[in-house]
């Protein structure tokens, strides 16, 4: 596949980054009637927004040390419950005090919550155990807070759908590879269409850099310095929920002090370590063991539980340039000391680049507020007077109310779809996969993020090959929908199967990506599961991992074209290079 340039696109604002912040910015612009295009190097939520524990903060975690963040959190917690209830599990949270924990901290905690406007209630040990029967018997007392669980992929999809319905566009698998400047202005953003294998220019009046932990790299392309600190957090996924609501340790934030029940699993978090690159998503054994051992102090059953996988994400921490006085945050490598609040950078006043803003720092819970802050500044410069409406306009899907963990099962029961299950662990039905394939998804990884396919205890022993089969049925049928059924004309050739993406290669990529997250958590029952999966895929199906065809490999390689040696393109190539073992298959008809 050769490089080339497709016809340019035009828009008012290019938003860089398909995490929750960028998508929230896109939606905010759309609601103010501004046309914008969002560009994302992989799929939505493949960076930090998809690599975190799913905690909808009440803010209590920051109440003692970072009350600005705490106030932002409780405000946005309330707002998100209003505009996006369907993405939220309304499960509440506890901060538990264990023997040895500092009671003085507990007093500060209560005060801090009060000062930050976070409602708390003190529970006796007995009351805490009634609410969370698996809590350690020696819990001394607990405080309830309005924490929740939030599904960032669902939030991303809703916000993106809303923005698209209002005329904005989302281009996934379009890493930014450069900017075109005329003096102090950016005139266009150059992106690489990783699926078509071609570059593309997007002419624009404004650029918003919402690349999160990667904001510094986007800044470099635009010629402005932004120092981000990559604050890696390691998390561990348990095979069941253990707790009804979020459980936090009531102590100064440290490793392994949060348990977040999410869908069918529980996520234990987190470490906080400064690493050289946000692409460092390794999960050392010692970190995994520490998460388990620390969280087991709060919920002892975790110690002997079944561990599904471990993963890491990178906090998008911003280091202000040369702060007056201080020697800068995170001197000791523990990034917890860096504020979790956010900052809008106007590169006109800051760097003399007239038409670009960056939004840095922050956290998922405050993504809407971050978007509002940067778009307010941008709108003022653009002369757009329409006020921000994102806090009041509810998102598509909000009429479903809060997400309930039992809802998927209720749906399966209502539809009598037991045998229609493609993924038994996560209750994903054939209809859901068919719909996703019909909507144009060609990668199992995308199905995973859309449907939670492959998340459960069996770690894709059955669902992945079933879904690969459905992708095979769907290939050669770009409009999707109808299942292949050749009963009427059985000798009809299989569409343009020769040109379609190879679902076996896609499956092998998916399995290898899943494997990376499992390696540090395999022992006990999960060791047996891993070998049974191995016996299925390698033993029965005889997959040897050699099925990646040339055209799929091509989107993992830098395009061969003039200018490839240009150092400003190097970042772009790294962005195309797949840090997560993923690649885009060529789309049908591309």
């Amino acid at each position, binding site marked *: 596949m050769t490089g080339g340039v497709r016809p340019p696109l035009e828009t008012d604002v290019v938003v860089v980054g398909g995490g929750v912040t960028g998508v929230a910015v896109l939606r905010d612009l759309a609601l103010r009637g501004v046309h914008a295009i969002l560009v994302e190097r992989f799929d939505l939520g493949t960076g930090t927004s998809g690599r975190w524990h799913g905690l909808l903060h009440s803010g209590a975690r920051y109440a003692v040390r970072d009350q600005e963040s705490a106030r932002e959190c409780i405000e946005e917690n309330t707002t998100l419950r209003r505009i996006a209830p369907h993405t939220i599990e309304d499960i509440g949270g506890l901060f538990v005090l264990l023997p040895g924990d500092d009671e003085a901290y507990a007093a500060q905690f209560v005060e801090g919550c009060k000062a930050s406007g976070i409602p708390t209630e003190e529970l006796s040990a007995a009351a805490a155990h009634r609410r969370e029967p698996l809590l350690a018997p020696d819990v001394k007392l607990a405080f309830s807070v309005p924490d929740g669980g939030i599904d960032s992929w669902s939030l991303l999809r809703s916000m993106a759908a809303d923005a698209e319905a209002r005329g904005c566009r989302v281009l996934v698998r379009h890493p930014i590879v450069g900017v075109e400047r005329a003096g102090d202005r950016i005139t266009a953003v150059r992106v690489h269409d990783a699926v078509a294998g071609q570059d593309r220019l997007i002419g624009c009046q404004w650029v918003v850099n919402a690349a999160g932990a990667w904001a510094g790299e986007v800044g470099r392309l635009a010629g402005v310095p932004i120092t981000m600190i990559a604050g890696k957090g390691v998390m561990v996924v348990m095979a069941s929920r253990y707790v009804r609501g979020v459980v936090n340790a009531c102590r100064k934030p440290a490793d392994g002090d949060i348990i977040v029940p999410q869908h069918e699993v529980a996520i234990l978090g987190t470490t906080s370590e400064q690493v050289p690159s946000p692409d460092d998503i390794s999960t050392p054994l010692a970190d995994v063991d520490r998460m388990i051992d620390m969280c087991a102090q709060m919920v002892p059953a975790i110690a002997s539980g079944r561990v599904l996988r471990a993963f890491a994400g990178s906090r998008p921490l911003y280091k202000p340039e040369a702060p007056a006085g201080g020697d800068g945050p995170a001197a000791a490598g523990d990034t917890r000391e860096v504020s979790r609040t956010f900052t809008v950078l106007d590169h006109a006043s800051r760097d003399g680049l007239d038409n670009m803003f960056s939004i840095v720092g922050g956290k998922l819970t405050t993504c809407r507020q971050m978007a509002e802050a940067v778009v307010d500044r941008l709108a003022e410069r653009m002369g757009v007077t329409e006020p921000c409406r994102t806090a009041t306009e509810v998102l598509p899907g909000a009429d479903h109310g809060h997400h309930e963990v039992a809802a998927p099962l209720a749906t399966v029961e209502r539809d009598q779809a037991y045998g229609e299950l493609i993924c038994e662990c996560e209750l994903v039905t054939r209809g859901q996969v068919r719909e996703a394939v019909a909507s144009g998804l060609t990668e199992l990884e995308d199905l995973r993020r859309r449907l939670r396919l492959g998340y459960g205890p069996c770690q894709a022993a059955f669902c992945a090959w079933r879904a690969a089969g459905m992708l095979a049925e769907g290939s050669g049928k770009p409009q999707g929908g109808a299942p292949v059924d*050749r009963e009427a004309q*059985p000798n009809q050739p299989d569409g343009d*199967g020769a040109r379609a993406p190879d679902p076996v290669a896609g499956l092998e990529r998916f399995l290898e990506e899943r*494997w990376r997250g499992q390696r540090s958590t395999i*022992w006990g029952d999960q060791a047996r599961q891993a070998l049974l999966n191995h016996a299925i*895929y390698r033993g029965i199906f005889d997959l040897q991992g050699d099925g990646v065809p040339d055209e799929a490999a091509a989107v993992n390689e830098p395009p061969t074209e003039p200018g490839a040696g240009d150092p400003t393109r190097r970042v772009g190539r790294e962005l195309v290079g797949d840090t997560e073992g993923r690649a885009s298959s060529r789309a049908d008809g591309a």
Partner: protein
Amino acid sequence: MRADVVVVGAGPAGLASATRLAEAGRQVLLLARGNGFTHWGAGSVDVLGRVGGEPVERPLEAIDRLPEGHPYHLVGQAAVRDGLDWFTRFTAEAGLGHRGDPERNRGQVTAFGTLRPTCLVPEPAAGELQGRVAVVNFAGFRDFSPALCAQRLRRSGIDATPATAPLPAWDHDRYFTGVELARAIDDAGFRRRLAPGLARAVAGAEVAVVPAVLGVERGHEPWADLQSLVGTPLVEAATAPPSIPGLRLFAAYRARLERLGVRWQFGFPAVGVERDGDRVTAVRSEGASRVLATRCQELVLATGGVAGNGIEANRDGTLTERVAGLPVDGFPDRLGFLGDRFLGDQPMAAAGVRVDADLRPVDASGEPLVANVRCVGGLLAGHDPTVEGSREGVALATAARVAALLAATPVR
């Protein structure tokens, strides 16, 4: 409780060992936690499918290229042949004829359209894929994708076309599993109603590949009958677990063991042994409410490796044999269990108990640790059943060896 020989484990090695020991006149108790790899395999007899990742053409010759300490070297080629000969006779008598030649591997078609190298395959999976091949699913069966299968077959130069056959009305028209479909196909009336639609889907192709669901309780008869009704050779493709060909085989073993008077305790995991000096005197197993001790003269462990639950993989990288606490070489940490790639090799799959030529567990210096314990099948160190494609071959060869050893031992 008392038994002459206790066999622990009901996978390919335990079933074959129990049957052969009973045939050799021993009084056998079969004790099992649950089902084994009959249900999880491809439904064929793998003897040696790959060495160093490369497909093997001549499995018996390729044994020479296996590393020292491999179970095949311990029992010798004669035991391998004996195991395969015995299995061929046993399955033929049970109405589950197999085809294949121990001298030469063949390709078994899978649901992915790959042709996995194996040695003996059940007759329904043995047809040649020549000429035009229809790859046919039964409408609504979620575990087989004719498009996926045909796509890969075409890459192997096979003229394959995907198709779907309608199912006649039946009581599972909303949803069903492979086992339910196989049970329906056991019924001759259902087959007569199924055949016309299947024939239309086959549409004149020389041979049809179908998922391995053609009956489960009547051996190969439903396959043979459906094939003659359709008028086209039908070839069953290996599908994911549960393996219906494996269920047929399991049922044949079970019937044979019952006829031989073997006592059979399922759902009773063995959890320990009692010892007297260098002999095991009893096996402890977990019942519904208590631990039972069964006294025995001989103990055959067919509990499998890590995959089969005979060996526990611990968080610190060590490995524990679960019944008798036999030594198993572990790893410095748990990352050692695994390879970098999922589809690569997994070191913990090859972990196991080291034994002498009489299949008795040995210590580091090679001396037997227990006089009356024999290990067979996946529990044995030095082989990776999945990566080599040797699971059933090792099971049958070591069962042959244990039968020879213990038949020759006078009953005390």
